[in-house]
């Protein structure tokens, strides 16, 4: 009985800060300035389909790149000695101790037309390249900022894989590639799905990265929402509607991915 009451603060917290805002978003999305019911806001979101598609696409690309970089790294880390593991985790966390804005500003100065990289290329007589204000720069910013969120869940899962199980696979004739595909991969599926969620969700709704590295031409859905609340286009009803659509999109993406994850697991079972 006691445990029932000890959960009470959390229920209150969730009611106040999760359920209530969600209801507010819903109400705003389906009302007009006079408070009357309307679906005009939702249908208006359709005008921004290209922004939605671009957001999902760039976030997906960034997520895949993160996964490709993080997976081998997490595996290598998980097989190191305990003190080396601690150092590596520390090094991966270290950039996160610095302010997010600061890190993204740093990338601006690196990628600018007369920034660090272009000046470096200039020494060899090549360039300058257009790097800032491109979709590539936005993806780079996403990968750089969200990579730790992919590495850490993968590492946490992989560190639990018993070395003896890997040795057992080798002992039974599995080459390194086969060990990776039929033992390590299926056992790390939970880490993969957590990592994807933790990178994709913030990436798809980011607005700082796209504004700073993408210029005005690569507006993302996050920027769009931002504009409705703090920008010139002030329209909280449309902003709420876009947020709602974004949430549905994320939900859809996640369920598709979970489906894929489960299939992966089943495939792993069959080797």
């Amino acid at each position, binding site marked *: 009985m006691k445990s029932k009451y000890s959960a009470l603060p959390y229920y209150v917290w969730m009611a106040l800060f999760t359920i209530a805002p969600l209801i507010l978003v819903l109400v705003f999305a389906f009302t007009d300035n006079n408070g009357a019911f309307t679906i005009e806001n939702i249908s208006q979101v359709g005008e921004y389909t290209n922004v939605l598609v671009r957001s999902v696409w760039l976030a997906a690309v960034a997520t895949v790149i993160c996964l490709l970089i993080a997976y081998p790294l997490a595996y290598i880390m998980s097989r190191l000695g305990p003190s080396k593991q601690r150092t590596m985790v520390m090094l991966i966390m270290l950039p996160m101790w610095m302010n997010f804005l600061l890190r993204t500003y740093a990338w601006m100065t690196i990628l600018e037309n007369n920034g660090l990289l272009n000046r470096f290329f200039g020494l060899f007589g090549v360039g300058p390249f257009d790097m800032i204000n491109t979709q590539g720069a936005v993806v780079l910013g996403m990968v750089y900022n969200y990579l730790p969120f992919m590495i850490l869940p993968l590492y946490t899962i992989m560190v639990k894989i*018993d070395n*003896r*199980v890997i*040795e*057992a*696979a*080798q*002992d*039974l*004739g*599995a*080459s390194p590639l*086969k060990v990776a595909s*039929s*033992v390590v991969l*299926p*056992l790390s599926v939970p880490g993969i799905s957590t990592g994807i969620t933790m990178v994709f969700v913030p990436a798809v709704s980011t607005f700082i990265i796209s504004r700073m590295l993408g210029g005005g031409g690569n507006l993302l859905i996050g920027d769009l929402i931002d504009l409705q609340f703090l920008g010139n286009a002030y329209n909280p009803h449309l902003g709420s509607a876009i947020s709602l659509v974004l949430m549905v999109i994320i939900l859809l993406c996640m369920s598709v991915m979970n489906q894929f994850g489960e299939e992966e*697991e089943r495939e*792993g*079972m*069959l*080797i």
Partner: protein
Amino acid sequence: MSTNTIISLKDIVVEFDGERVLEGLDLDIHDKEFVTFLGPSGCGKTTTLRIIGGFVAPKNGDVFFEGKRINDLPPYKRQVNTVFQRYALFPHLNVFENVAFGLKIQKLPEKEIRTRVLEMLELVNLKGFENRGVNQLSGGQQQRVAIARALVNHPKVLLLDEPLGALDLKLRKEMQIELKKIQQSLGITFIYVTHDQEEALTMSDTVVVMKDGDIQQIGTPEDIYNEPKNAFVADFIGESNIVPGIMKKDFLVEFAGRDFECVDSGFTPMEQVDVVVRPEDIKVVPTIAGHITGIVENVTFKGVHFEMEVLACGTHWLIHSTQSQAVGASIGMQIGPEDIHIMHKMEE
């Protein structure tokens, strides 16, 4: 015997972080033999096994398999399979898939895999468990899966790293007999690592007693028990009384304050030796009839026998007897010539 040597280790040296684990180990293992590496923890027995499996690379020395040097062969190319300590089953696979793992890698036809896996599961008494998850199994069952998973590949040599360590006594004894049966019926070389001397004596054709990265003695269980080469082996294999003595001449040794006839010869006259007497070889007799007189200090009931601690001539003697004596009683101890084992003092 050397004609059917299957594995040969020559002058193997292993170091972990600068610490020597094996110091120049030489060993020949014969085909179809049940060999046990026996020793206290840290003696290098598991390391030796891992060298044969390919998981540890020796710093120095050579490993031969059927006459071919295999030092640089990775584990997955070796014709040996291992039953790991704590089994190391694949947690994401069921019993059938665990056992089939090796065969699937060999890309055998689905039908053959099925037949062989089912056959093997029957051999280890796990018929009908194919679709169980491995985490739903008891320790004994997991252990059988591990054995089946290794044996199904028909390895020439099976390596077993303390496979029964996590099981309770009764199950362990059953599995010992089962393992021996499997080894004999399949005609495969078993290399077995244990620190349990009784297990080693029960199952092995050959026992290799190890200590501090060195082989102390190689022999049949009877040899090792009856003719231990030094006091360490005597002490480790079963319980024993080890007392200092002097070899007066052939067949005559002095210890515990008097001369005893014995069956050993070939020592330098007046050599300082270790005298080993098994606790069950000391006969309890009335004080007048005994070679030595002692006072009973402690009696423990052990089921089949009583274990007594007797103080005599300044030494505590361990005696196993089917008859109990009162604590504090004076008893005579009789030791026959065949029951006295003379050993050179260990150089230390």
